[in-house]
């Protein structure tokens, strides 16, 4: 069995003169938590809608578990669970009824199974209430309960934590990690919260102006290029002067939160040793190069 769960092949969508997605080629492998990043209007949602056959490609195709979406839609979507943008339900119906209807489209689901899934996302006690009385966070959790009903092997989530409070975001992240680790589910998620992707994704792709800019392992992508650390010490002015005498560092400057030091990734332990060796108390040494800086550099053309 192929290791590739999802593959887009020259996936393109053109609206009149605007190219929303331009020959997108990405591959998601079994077990990945794949972060799909891009600024607003980059084409993320259009790409996801094409992957789920909500929007028809102008060109190209999508293969899910080896099945072409254009030729074998049923087989392609059979093992997929998805929440696209804000989860929308039949507001006048209860959560129980919504899951019975939307979860039972392919095969009937038992009430027991529905309740187990509602329990899992913490909505069992509100199962009988009309969904229109639910908060946004509860709708998000109900969306997750829905996609879990059919035991998907690929879960596609479009901005899954949007509108959630910090606790809700944490719960969703934990659920995604649990799906991946305990059930072996492959997760494809788009997000504008780069920190979130950095926390849970193993692979990622960045799309900008409809085109794929970069794809690869999150860890490897973060290692590329120069790094930056935040250095907190008891004597910042003296520390800055000291750093100026050392050639291994590219640059250093004092900021309100501490000293920002630009250096190569592998020099970070050496920086710590030298500071301690020179008699400074190193209170904190925090890597500053995050996915966010990488992302912004890439979008602004400062990074290849």
């Amino acid at each position, binding site marked *: 069995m192929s290791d590739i769960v999802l593959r887009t092949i020259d996936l393109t969508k053109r609206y009149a003169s605007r190219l929303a997605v331009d020959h997108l080629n990405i591959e998601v492998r079994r077990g990945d938590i794949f972060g799909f990043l891009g600024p607003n209007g980059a084409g993320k949602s259009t790409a996801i809608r094409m992957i789920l056959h909500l929007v*028809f490609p102008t060109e190209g195709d999508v293969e899910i578990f080896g099945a072409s979406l254009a030729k074998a839609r049923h087989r392609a979507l059979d093992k997929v669970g998805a929440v696209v*943008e804000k989860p929308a339900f039949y507001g006048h*119906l209860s959560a129980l009824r919504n899951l019975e*209807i939307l979860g039972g489209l*392919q095969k*009937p689901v038992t009430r027991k199974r529905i309740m187990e899934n509602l329990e899992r996302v913490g909505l069992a006690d509100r199962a009988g209430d009309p969904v229109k009385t639910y908060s946004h966070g509860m709708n998000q959790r109900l969306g997750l309960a829905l996609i879990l009903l059919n035991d998907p092997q690929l879960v596609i989530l479009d901005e899954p934590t949007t509108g959630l409070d910090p606790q809700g975001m944490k719960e969703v992240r934990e659920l995604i990690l649990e799906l991946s680790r305990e059930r072996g589910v492959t997760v494809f998620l788009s997000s504008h919260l780069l920190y979130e992707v950095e926390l849970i994704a193993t692979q990622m792709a960045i799309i900008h102006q409809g085109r794929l800019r970069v794809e690869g392992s999150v860890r490897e992508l973060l290692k590329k290029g120069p790094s930056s650390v935040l250095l907190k010490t008891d004597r910042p002015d003296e520390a800055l002067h000291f750093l100026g005498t050392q050639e291994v560092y590219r640059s250093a400057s004092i900021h309100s939160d501490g000293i920002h030091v630009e250096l190569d990734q592998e020099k970070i332990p050496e920086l710590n040793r030298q500071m301690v060796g020179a008699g400074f108390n190193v209170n904190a040494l925090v890597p500053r190069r995050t996915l966010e800086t990488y992302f912004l550099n890439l979008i602004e053309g400062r990074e290849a």
Partner: protein
Amino acid sequence: MLHLIRFELIKTFTRWRTYIGFIAFGIIVPLVVAGLKLGGQHSFERHLLSLLQNDFVIGGNVLNGWFFGFFFMGALWVHIPIVLTIVAGDQIAGEGNAGTFRFLLTHAVSRTRIIAVKFIVTLIYTAVMVLFIGGLTLGLSLAAFGSGDLLIIRRGILVIPEAQLPYHFLMAYGLATLAMFVVSSLCFLFSSLTDNSIGPIIATMAVIIVSIIIISLPFELFQAIRPYLFVHYFDAWQKVFDDPIPWGAIRTNVAVLTGFMAAFYLAAMVHFAGKDILS
């Protein structure tokens, strides 16, 4: 397929908007029947007798329940489409507007099946509504004015014996239901074109009103257009009260109405099957 129809029936018949028509006719029809019973019947009597008393001897209960059942059907067929469109217009557009297609269409269920199910439920609602109105008007009329032979003044005067009336009314309701299926199908087509439920309602009523104007005005230009308007074939139900019953004309009406219904459904299906879901 059956489980999908069940789900669609649940969605449709648990919305309060589905019952607007039932509530409206459930209030209006008893009020009108009560009004007739409490005096309005006499003006009918006077009008009818003024037409007939010079030539005929009128005896028995002429203004009976069957008469008013027939009268109601003739009076209400223009109004029934309004309540039908409330549901038919929402069948596809409502899901688009709510965003529920984002869940519904990402499953391994084909769009053609989903639209077929929605169409079937639209027809079920239409049939239930027409039969409810027919049953209510006839039932209340019979309860209020009793039974008897039916006197019809349409291309002459015809009296249909009481014993044959259930058969005639059953056929009439069947044909009226078919005519209303065409209205619902048109609204269903409009519903597939938009994500706004109000648009299909307005568009359908606009088509019906314009069509009625065209078939009503005695202009030569309009006469050429009439055969192409589905409203032109809506009077099939009245034909079963003719003597002899013009089966050939009824068959033509049924074929044309069925053709319109199929065309509207197919157009909706083709459009929806290739539609980008952007909401």
